[in-house]
């Protein structure tokens, strides 16, 4: 019997994985992939709450659709920034992009 708690635990684990990627990876594209995992975890939460806690409404799915759209926008702009930074600094590793440091 799959209850709401199962989905919440799964999305918490996925969120933890995404957070680990953002905190520890050096390559900016890898960090972006972690962000996508976190967004997916949040979406699973939204849709699971929609089905189990508020079945009459549709808000959860609508919100999840908007989150997918905004995630696509953010991935596009983020990757454009990475490309522009690569052209200028010849690196995509975030710890080497430190010209504003100090």
């Amino acid at each position, binding site marked *: 019997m799959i209850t709401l708690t199962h989905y919440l635990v799964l999305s918490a684990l996925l969120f*933890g994985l995404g*957070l680990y990627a953002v905190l520890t990876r050096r390559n900016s*594209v890898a960090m972006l992939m972690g962000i996508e995992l976190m967004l997916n975890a949040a979406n699973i939460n939204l849709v699971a709450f929609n089905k189990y806690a508020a079945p*009459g409404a549709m808000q959860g799915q609508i919100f999840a659709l908007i989150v997918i759209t905004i995630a*696509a926008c953010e991935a596009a702009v983020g990757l454009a920034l990475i490309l522009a930074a690569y*052209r200028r600094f010849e690196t995509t590793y975030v710890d080497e992009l430190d010209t504003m440091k100090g």
Partner: protein
Amino acid sequence: MVGEALAFYLLAAITLASGIVVVTSPNLVHSAVALVPALLGVTGLYILLNAEFLAGVQVLIYAGGITVLILFVIMLTEGATGLRVPQRNEQGPIGAAVAGAAAAVLIAVATRTPWAHGAGVLPSYTPGAIGESFLGPNLLLFEGTSVVLLVTLVGAILIARKED
């Protein structure tokens, strides 16, 4: 019930295993390709949660769009050739501890709260119903997202353009 439980555990296993490959693989192209089964696992979970339109949109945009974009950028920059460069920075253990703590707090909250199960019949989440909802109560959300998409389109092209 048994079928649903089996499907849930199978999809959860696929999603989490692919997620682990995404965040820990030293080969960046392997990470990007492992994103596809992770996103398809999430698609399966949406279908289990009666959100079919969302599942179709997830495959179309995430697996077919964002993954392709990520692969393009990996192949156009140096990320995929740096196999001898360390991919993990020095905050490895601290990062793992923080992420593990965050997940643990979320799991603790999730398992200890008695969630109120709403009463109500599941409506049919057909595309028509979702469309009517977008043009009815959620119209501002819809129009706002369109503006964001337009700004993103223009912005991404401007940022990624070659300087002449």
